[in-house]
């Protein structure tokens, strides 16, 4: 059984504009797939739709996780079943500390996945948190700060990967995790993702640039233009893209769909 499967997926905005126009994709455990596409190609819409954002409507096709149809499931249910989205623009939640948030989230997924009614013991939680923070070179001081509130772009991205490491999903979707990261941070984050990919977990990396793929080393690369996968191949496809750009597939930068906002490096 495939871990994540998209079958003929069509996604529209609330105003009816179709952004994702029929995507077929299968990602298995122990695999990293990359979706590469220009700005405005609908990459972020695809990732939001997989995670269950209510503003993006699946008009046709289906999303399967571990063989279960999650097309109609809420974002919380998908997360509880093992899906994780690392956001391009993580939301700030003022007044809520990183530790408090993580503990609540872990308890929610533990309860759903393993039927654990008891919350994670504080000692166990702290040990795991500090272990993962050290591994991802996240300053321990961030643990007691308000979630993403006043974080630099790089801090936000690292904390996304920290959340992933703590929540231990089956399937991780990383939406432009490389943007806003300097090269050292990129290496740490990419290494963190690669280490987590295992016979229990797979990942889908969505990116504009090849840069992050140098460190994550995808098993499959898909070129995404105008809401569709136009070509799939091995890692060498990323090199071809780097050399010739997206134009060979008829893509124009700033095409339809929203172009991402600028974000500062840390």
């Amino acid at each position, binding site marked *: 059984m495939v871990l994540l499967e998209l079958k003929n997926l069509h996604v529209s905005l609330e105003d009816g504009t179709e952004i994702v126009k029929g995507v077929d994709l299968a990602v298995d455990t122990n695999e990293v797939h990359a979706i590469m596409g220009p700005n405005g190609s609908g990459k972020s819409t695809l990732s939001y739709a997989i995670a*269950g*954002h209510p503003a993006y409507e699946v008009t046709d096709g289906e999303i399967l996780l571990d063989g279960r149809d999650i097309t109609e499931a809420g974002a*919380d249910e998908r997360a509880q079943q093992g899906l994780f989205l690392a956001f391009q623009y*993580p939301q700030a*939640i003022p007044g809520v500390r990183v530790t408090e948030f993580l503990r609540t989230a872990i308890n929610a*997924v533990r309860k*759903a996945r393993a039927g654990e009614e008891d919350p994670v013991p504080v000692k166990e939680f702290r040990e795991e948190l500090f272990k993962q923070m050290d591994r991802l070179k996240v300053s321990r001081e961030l643990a007691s700060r*308000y979630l993403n509130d006043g974080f630099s772009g790089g801090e936000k991205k690292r904390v996304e990967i920290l959340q992933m490491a703590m929540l231990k999903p089956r399937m991780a979707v990383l939406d432009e995790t490389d943007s806003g990261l300097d090269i050292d941070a990129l290496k740490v984050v990419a290494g963190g993702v690669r280490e987590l990919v295992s016979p229990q977990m797979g990942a889908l990396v969505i990116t504009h640039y090849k840069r992050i793929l140098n460190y994550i080393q995808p098993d499959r690369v898909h070129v995404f233009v105008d809401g569709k996968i136009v070509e799939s191949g091995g890692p060498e496809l990323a090199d071809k893209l780097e050399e010739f750009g997206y134009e060979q597939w008829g893509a124009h930068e700033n095409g339809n769909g929203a172009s991402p906002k600028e974000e500062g490096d840390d």
Partner: protein
Amino acid sequence: MAQIEDERFAGGPDENEIVREIGSDYAEKYGFHVGDTPEDYFFKSGRGLSHELVEMISEHKKEPEWMRKFRHSSLDYFLARPLPSWGGDVSGIDFENIYYYIKPTEKQAESWDDLPADIKDTWDKLGIPEAEKKYLAGVGAQYESEVVYHKVQEELAKQGVIFLDMDSGLREHEELVKQYFGTIIPQNDNKFAALNSAVWSGGSFIYVPKGVKIELPLQAYFRINAENMGQFERTLIIVDEGAQVHYVEGCTAPIYSSDSLHSAVVEIIVHKGGRCRYTTIQNWSTNVYNLVTKRAIAYEDAIMEWVDGNLGSKLTMKYPAIWLMGPRAHGEVLSIAFAGAGQHQDAGGKCVHVAPETSSVITSKSISKNGGRAGYRGLLQVAKGAKNAKSKVVCDALILDEDSRSDTYPYIQIDEDEVDIGHEASVSKIGEEQLFYLMSRGLSEAEASAMVVSGFVEPITKELPLEYAIEMNRLIELQMEGSVG
């Protein structure tokens, strides 16, 4: 007008159910079943308000002549004053249908062993003995309208600290009480202060002598337990020069089938260099009118802080005030109001700068949902001559749905030129993107909303003693569970 307001606030049957359910676990949690029939009470006045009633209360308490007169003249003021026409709608209060005085046991208990078993059971369920073991410096428990249990740790007594219920305070320290009682909040200050002055019973009397710093909070628990019973506690705190105290008052209440009135008066005097913090978490059931007058006076270099959380009640009108009378006195008011279906929280704070170099901060956070109405009403006043006064007022409102309402009435009156005054106000809603972000981590919509709301009020909950902060967040979770699905 009352009819119109009622209709506007009326939620659907689901909401009413939710509101009832919120209180429904109080019975097992706090054991509020005890003493629900009038026969269980030792003494209970008849319904309604009159000079005969006032005479009876004073006589029953064996009060000195001056207090008896004070009560009678206060009643005259109460009867002469019209109901306030501003703030919330108080026209639903039926003053003739309220018990003004109930005394549950014949005499005050002096130790745990003396307490009646049902009362003790209630306090056990509230976790008092354990909390006491840990770090409570003293417990004053108001059961019905009379304080039945008080314990002041020996250490405090040795330091000369007085921590009594107000009735005992009057009996044992009459001169001290007479010197300050009704001086900060005159009996005719407002209609409800006049009512309290006429029929007050219970509350706390605290005196902290010069230079004595009480590090651990003094706590008291209040609740109303009889239908149609008013609760009119009266608290007086005197912090002498260089002394320090933190007083914590928490309220929980069972469910009622008809309206109830809580109208307290709290007077605080902080002498030169003293410091006082007064923390309240109010969670009255949603049929209670909570009309409280709280005022403090801070002298030279003194610090006064009000931390005030208003979660329950049908209507709350409460604006803790600080008069900064001496140079460099500092005042802070931290206020949270949470208004659900059928609730109106009209809360805020007042700071009056009389002396130079005084400073104040008012921080107000309000949340309204399911048609609830939460407002900030505040006064910042700087008198002529209060040079270099500094003040900051921040009021933030979070509105959780289209049916709910938030109002801001920030009155500012400045009669001095050399001042530094700041005012910030914001109104926000929980963003869809915030909810999606939290839900994508496995939190349900209700958990996600509760988390955003808890974060919103965090600047205030972090100032609460831990067990109150936990209780506060739990109450928010309960409220949010009611608001979705």
